[in-house]
């Protein structure tokens, strides 16, 4: 494997660690990372832009005399970094002491992330891709000029990247993660007979090029845009809400955030003091599965180097986990877990596999295929989102809807969970399938 981080750069990171200790930091954590990106942009069937980038960063977390600071630089010359570290230690000494800051206990650290390849997330084919091949990959996915007269603009991007990172600390942590990512995405705008515009997108991503669904990406984006032509209004009221897996994360991410240590410790969470309580319905189980080989987004360790593990987040409606790093767990007097959710999977329920199964089970209501606005209150759990989607009756889509809003509170919403399908797209970092909820407030 032709990894991005060189032996010289790894040696430099080790030197910085030793140098910081020699200059007075009692404990140190260093993360060295590099990303190589190649991108081809396409506009209306022609290459519109190309981009080539190599990013690198060295981040230091310094524990000095009971104080703590975070620093980073992308100027990786040895002399400059030594001066930077000296200044950084001086800055940390000016801060107020914080006894809760510490490195994780050594037994919690990952010991199985040695060469970065353990999760099979690196595809060597990225090393031999030429500029011409990348152009072909980008242009080969176009739908422009294929006879859809309503299509007025089509913009797309193909990209591939290599990410290589190494985390070291002063108690012997050595944790490396290497992955490739191949992505294709298109946005299409169509025009109806009255001159109204409708746009939509489609995309795919994979750690392996051969598993990237290139064909049909732009065509799907165009079809999704065309499907929105002719929206009709639906009166305000309570409807069954079905949320397409493509956008269902919008309803779960605030729940995961509310279980995050910083929100909980700062009392800025509607799930404060929820651990062990049954606040969600019996039919909701959410797992974190961070160590599934080959799966997008999986990691063997978090940003502190703590080993990830499979665990329930919510099990049969009971809150089983807070996301607590070393600092927050010390502050809250709780056992540390992991810094954040990694590879979330919502378990299917209600006997549905596909979106069509869910629509049939729901009968009538509103199918949401996209959200407009990212609006919720973390302290109260109240939300209000603009939506786009379709009115469905008897399990079948009737017509598109537009300029509608859903409003509610997350706890109330999740307690109206009707069904969870089994159709989450593997390219998503969170495996959240199509969801259905009863009696949701819609405004139009």
């Amino acid at each position, binding site marked *: 494997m032709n990894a991005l981080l060189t032996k010289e750069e790894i040696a430099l990171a080790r030197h910085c660690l030793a140098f910081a200790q020699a200059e007075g930091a009692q404990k140190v954590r260093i993360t060295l990372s590099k990303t190589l990106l190649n991108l081809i942009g396409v506009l209306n069937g022609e290459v519109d832009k190309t981009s080539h980038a190599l990013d690198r960063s060295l981040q230091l977390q310094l524990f000095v005399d009971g104080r703590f600071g975070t620093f980073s630089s*992308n*100027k990786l010359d040895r002399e400059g970094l030594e001066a930077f570290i000296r200044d950084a230690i001086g800055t940390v000494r000016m801060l107020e002491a914080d006894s809760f800051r510490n490195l994780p206990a050594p037994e919690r650290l990952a010991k199985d992330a040695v060469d970065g390849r353990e999760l099979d997330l690196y595809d060597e084919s990225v090393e031999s891709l030429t500029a011409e091949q990348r152009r072909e990959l980008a242009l080969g996915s176009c739908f422009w000029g294929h006879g859809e007269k309503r299509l007025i603009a089509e913009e797309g991007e193909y990209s591939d990247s290599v990410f290589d990172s190494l985390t070291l600390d002063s108690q012997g942590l050595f944790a490396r993660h290497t992955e490739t990512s191949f992505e294709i995405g298109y946005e299409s705008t169509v025009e109806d007979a009255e001159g109204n515009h409708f746009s939509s997108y489609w995309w795919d991503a994979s750690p392996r090029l051969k598993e990237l669904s290139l064909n049909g990406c732009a065509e799907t984006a165009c079809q999704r845009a065309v499907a929105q032509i002719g929206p009709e209004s639906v009166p305000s009221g309570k409807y069954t809400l079905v949320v397409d897996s493509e956008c269902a994360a919008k309803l779960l991410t605030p729940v995961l955030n509310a279980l995050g240590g910083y929100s909980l410790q700062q009392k800025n969470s509607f799930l404060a003091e929820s651990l062990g309580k049954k606040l969600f319905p019996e039919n909701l189980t959410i797992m974190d599965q961070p160590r599934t080989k080959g799966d997008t987004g999986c990691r063997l360790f978090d940003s502190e180097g703590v080993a990830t593990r499979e665990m329930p987040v919510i099990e049969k409606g009971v809150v089983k986990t807070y996301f607590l790093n070393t600092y927050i767990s010390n502050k809250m007097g709780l056992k540390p877990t992991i810094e954040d959710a990694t590879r979330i999977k919502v378990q299917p329920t209600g006997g549905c596999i596909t979106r069509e199964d869910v629509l049939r089970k729901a009968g009538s209501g509103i199918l949401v295929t996209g959200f407009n606005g990212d609006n919720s209150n973390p302290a109260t759990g109240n939300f209000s989102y603009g939506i786009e989607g379709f009115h469905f009756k008897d399990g079948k889509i009737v017509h598109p809807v537009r300029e509608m809003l859903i*409003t509610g509170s997350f706890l109330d919403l999740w307690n109206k969970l009707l069904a969870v399908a089994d159709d989450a797209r593997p390219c998503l970092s969170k495996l959240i399938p199509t969801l259905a909820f009863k009696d949701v407030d819609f405004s139009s």
Partner: protein
Amino acid sequence: MIHPKAYYFNTFQVDQAILDRLVEEGLRSGGSYCDLFFENTAYGNLLLRDGAVSSGGSHVDYGIGVRVLSGEKTGYAYSESTAWADMCECARAAAQIADKPVEVSPFGSRNPSRGEPNPSADRYPEKEPWLGVPMSSFLPFLQKLEADIKRRDSRIVKVIVNLAFQVSDILMYNSSRELKWDTRPMGSVAVTAIFQQGDKIENKSTSRSFRCGAEMLSEDLIADMAADVVKGIDARFEARRPKGGQMPVVMGAGASGILLHEAMGHAFEADFNRKGTSIFADKMGRQICPKGINILDDGTLPGNRGSLNFDDEGIPGQKTYMVEDGVLTSYLHDRISAAHYGVKPTGNGRRESFRYAPIPRMRATYMESGTAKADDLIGSVQKGIYVDEFSNGQVQIGEGDFTFYVKAGWLIEDGRLTMPVKDINIIGNGPAALADMQGVADDLIVDPGAWTCGKEQSVPVSCGIPTVLIGKLTVGGE
């Protein structure tokens, strides 16, 4: 502060000959235009949480971006090193966008602006520098601000204060031999307070952000932010959600400018129009809102978060009227879109950092004051809502549909503010909302908050508006 040219050449270890050679490399494959963007940004931050300033840090971001244009096509590459070999590789990568010579350069070579930046015209001088002084000198500001906030309301259980500052040294050069340099400071203070009343929790946030030096950390700012973060908390605890549906909306002066940003500003950015996706793509020169309304995007406000001496293509900062007397008169242009439309660039070519190619972006977007009185606009509404505190917004460019989240406002009944409301979304259509503006008050406020626009890249902006009445928008509710 704008330094002498030598300061920037020294920072990036270049000279005029190196710049010329690098541009030549960029054009070697036949590109029609090449520009270089050098950046050295130093960041600092301090965080007060749980009563102590116990977290902070500093960060350095340094590099060069090379853009090569072939017609309207863009090749872009960047390097985090300004060693000749690295910059040269970067220029050659960007040059690959072109595969044959393009004879005519449409990108600004007709009237190149070769004058040097004028330090006396600097829109954001630092009276007290952020860098070169111990960060400990900023600690008392955070501590005093926390104390002042806590003093004002006994229901406060947590206060978080975040101070972030940055200073960017920028050097720009292009194949029209235009050489510009700039130093851009930015200071931002953000406060969140958590209030507890019985078993109810509410949060309130406020922020201030300016292009200026550390002189912004004043006693006046402490008093201003402390008052702002506790203002209206009683109403917040009492607030309910209104019954949803379509209704008149009075948008309070200041932060309601997010309406202009989301509903109109993005649709006026010329790249969306050049590509044909914007709902305003064929509306130039047409009446799009009532007479008397003027909407502009301004890069010239001293110390404003969105202001620029030069944009990120080296075009002088300027004030651009997009709507005059209700007529759409200009899009917001970078060099590419300006060449496409045959007009002058408007100084809106902006980028997040050297890692990004510039694209048309807003600066400070606002509507000029009208002649009505705010109280009269509220008084004219039978049943609707008044809104003045927002968290964010979003727009779908093609459709023109926008949404923004109202943190706080009031129900209007029979011309009076009767019941506080909170946590509601408002959704509408940009062209329809513009056409439906039924009154503009005489109280323009440009909001001083830390607004950031996230179109592909994050750039600092600001927004403002006088109190306006819109006849009909969809309000989320129960």
